[in-house]
């Protein structure tokens, strides 16, 4: 546990530096409660995806289809039929729809990777293309507007001043942490990612476990889809574009190795916050887009290098 603080020290430092930059460049607007909530709200849907992604990467794989699954789930949960069902019955049906779509897409990924022995990169790349195509077909490329008040009220609401979206993110992150660090599922995920053959010889059903991990991230995408639907009040086949890259970036900045076998939920949360805060500061400072892009590239590099150095030093002692 003491290792955990040390391991994430680089991230804390990086986040602090970014905070100082925010304070310095926008002293009146950056350090406000409202702005903090804005950052958190923005970070939460992607954050949920990153938690799932941490598991996939810890299991030695990658999932490029998260954004597309999210789009498909958002569309499926907001079709006219879904919304009518929600009106007739209860908006919870929309929730189930999104989660089920996410789970099934994840299941297909998982089956292809675990039993079809496809590289996860390529299996999920195919899923990316196909799921977005399917989302377009279902939505007829129209943005689907959500009219179900109960749904919007619930997800758009606040509890004790905290937006429900942020609370969901916090719960998912906490659940992810427990799952990864305190359960046999998490332990086995790390084993499968660290040395699949050793895991197999230890009696772990590696294929089934791999499949489950993909289902897990699919469900996370389903949750994120609901959050994004609530935030935008729409379902659309264009939701979540390029989120796969942002999610992976957050996980790696957080210190999880792409080679598998290790994973840190705390780091991932930090990684996501760093990226979100950065974006917010860019917004506050009217930075021009292209310059932002260059700066963002440089900052990702700097953050990862810092994180590595501190982790290495921490390990050395």
């Amino acid at each position, binding site marked *: 546990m003491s290792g955990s603080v040390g391991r994430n020290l680089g991230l804390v430092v990086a986040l602090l530096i970014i905070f100082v930059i925010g304070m310095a460049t926008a002293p009146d607007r950056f350090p406000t409660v409202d702005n903090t909530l804005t950052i958190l709200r923005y970070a939460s849907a992607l954050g949920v995806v990153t938690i799932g992604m941490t598991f996939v990467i810890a299991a030695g794989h990658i999932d490029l289809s998260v954004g597309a699954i999210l789009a498909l789930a958002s569309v499926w949960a907001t079709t006219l039929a879904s919304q009518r069902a929600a009106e007739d019955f209860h908006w919870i049906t929309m929730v189930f729809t999104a989660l089920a779509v996410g789970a099934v897409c994840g299941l297909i990924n998982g089956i292809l990777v675990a039993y079809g022995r496809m590289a996860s990169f390529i299996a999920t790349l195919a899923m990316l293309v196909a799921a977005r195509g399917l989302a377009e077909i279902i939505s007829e490329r129209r943005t689907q507007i959500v009219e179900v008040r109960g749904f919007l009220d619930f997800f758009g609401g606040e509890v004790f001043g905290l937006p429900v979206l942020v609370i969901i993110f916090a719960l998912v992150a906490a659940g992810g942490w427990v799952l990864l660090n305190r359960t046999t599922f998490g332990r086995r995920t790390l084993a499968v990612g660290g*040395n699949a053959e050793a895991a197999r*010889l230890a009696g772990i059903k590696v294929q089934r476990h791999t499949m489950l991990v993909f289902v897990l991230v699919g469900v996370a995408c389903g949750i994120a889809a609901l959050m994004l639907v609530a935030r935008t009040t729409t379902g659309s086949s264009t939701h979540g574009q390029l989120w796969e890259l942002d999610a992976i970036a957050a996980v790696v900045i957080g210190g999880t190795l792409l080679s598998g076998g290790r994973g840190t939920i705390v780091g991932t949360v930090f990684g996501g916050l760093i990226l979100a805060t950065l974006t917010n500061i860019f917004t506050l400072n009217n930075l021009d887009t292209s310059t932002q892009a260059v700066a963002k590239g440089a900052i990702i590099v700097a953050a990862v290098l810092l994180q590595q150095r501190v982790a290495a030093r921490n390990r050395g002692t």
Partner: protein
Amino acid sequence: MHGIVKTFPGVRALDGVDLDVSPGEVHCLLGQNGAGKSTLIKVLAGAHHPDDGTISWRGSHVRITDPMSAMRLGIATIYQELDLVDGLTVAENIYLGHELASAGFTHRAQTDRAAQRLLERLGHPEISPRTEVGRLPAAGKQIVSMARALSHDVQLIVMDEPSAVLDQEEVNRLFGVIRDLTRDGVAVVYISHRLEEIREVGDRVTVLKDGRTVATGLPARETPTSEVIRLMTGRSIEYAFPDRGTHDARAEPVLSVRNLSRDGEFADVTFDVAPGEIVGLAGLVGSGRSEIIETIYGARKSTSGAVTVHGRRLRPGSVRSAVAAGVGLCPEERKSQALLMHESVVRNISLPSLSRFASSSFINRSVERAAATEQVQKLDVRPADPSREVRTLSGGNQQKVVLGRWLLKGCDVLLLDEPTRGVDVGARSELYSLIRDLAAQGVAILLVSSEIPEVLGLADQVLVISDGRVVHTGPADEIDEHQVLGLVMEGSVT
């Protein structure tokens, strides 16, 4: 087990093998490299599916479909290639797959305590259950593997060359554990290439040759060595060290090491190796011998001191500079440090000498192949197919491939770290004469081995290392095994 058949693409690894083990006995499995020992026990452990044959357990037929079903029967296995997860802790590895948990939630403290007890039972209370396994040296990993086997409620433990990475002291401790187990009625299948170990703990012996059982139920203690070797190899082999050659002790040393140190690992190592001389490093596991060898080679960067070859100083921390000066290394862990598992034997052998087969960086592949094939034949790698992927070779044959690499390269200085680890008796005596021949040709050889007799029998000069320091230097024929052990013990006490 009866009539077990297992074929891999292109090889019939097991061709109708029989093996029967009784409760409370130590049943030894002998055979040359590639005879099929590991494959057989992997079938027993559920890691491989046999193509044919039956397995009976306590009188009834069973089907062992996966590792879990073997474990449920009470069969635990320590594999030859250490299969642990580096990123997990010692305790997590020990209980992997059968975690101490309720409703999926792990009990960490309880796991750590249980692991600690197992490690104590194995005589290693100093290994912390919280350490990441990746940080342990090979011997430590072997201990963890054993603890993992013991963590099951077992009736049969299979050990595939557990002593390969252990030193004398450790092996004795292991034997103690084995005796405890057999006393409780647990059966042990023990695989080793060291015949003297078989004699010490074994009850009965089964000999495999080319995937077939050639003898079974031999009494371990009474069967004469020559008989065992004949069964294994089909010929009789002098199990002895070749005569020491003569080398000019006053010749300019090829390799000189002066006050070499690396913080926290070893300090102040000084010695010379003359052409044709074999210098052996003896010591316990963890005494830092591998570090010394790897530092000489430049794979680790020394903090102080100098290494010179032919009077030219090597750049610290530069493998290139060592290789360019004619130094070669057969590293300790062949799988992770030496071999391209998915490449052919040819390509593994030619790797460091590539430029020799290339003109303006285009490779002449027929010359390359011919040269590698020559090494394959010289070393008697089996099967003798140089285009076979190294992955599919047995452990001992893989070791020969690594050696062949440097023979082909033609080194002036050869650093051998546990060169006979996992090598069968036949091949072992071949390797001994090979090493001797090399020395006779003027190669300076530095040898690390955890088998003290091997160091004493092969080397001209012996350095005894304890805790990263040289505690004794002298000719090999002036010291015996007990003295070495005494020195090592003393060193570790101070």
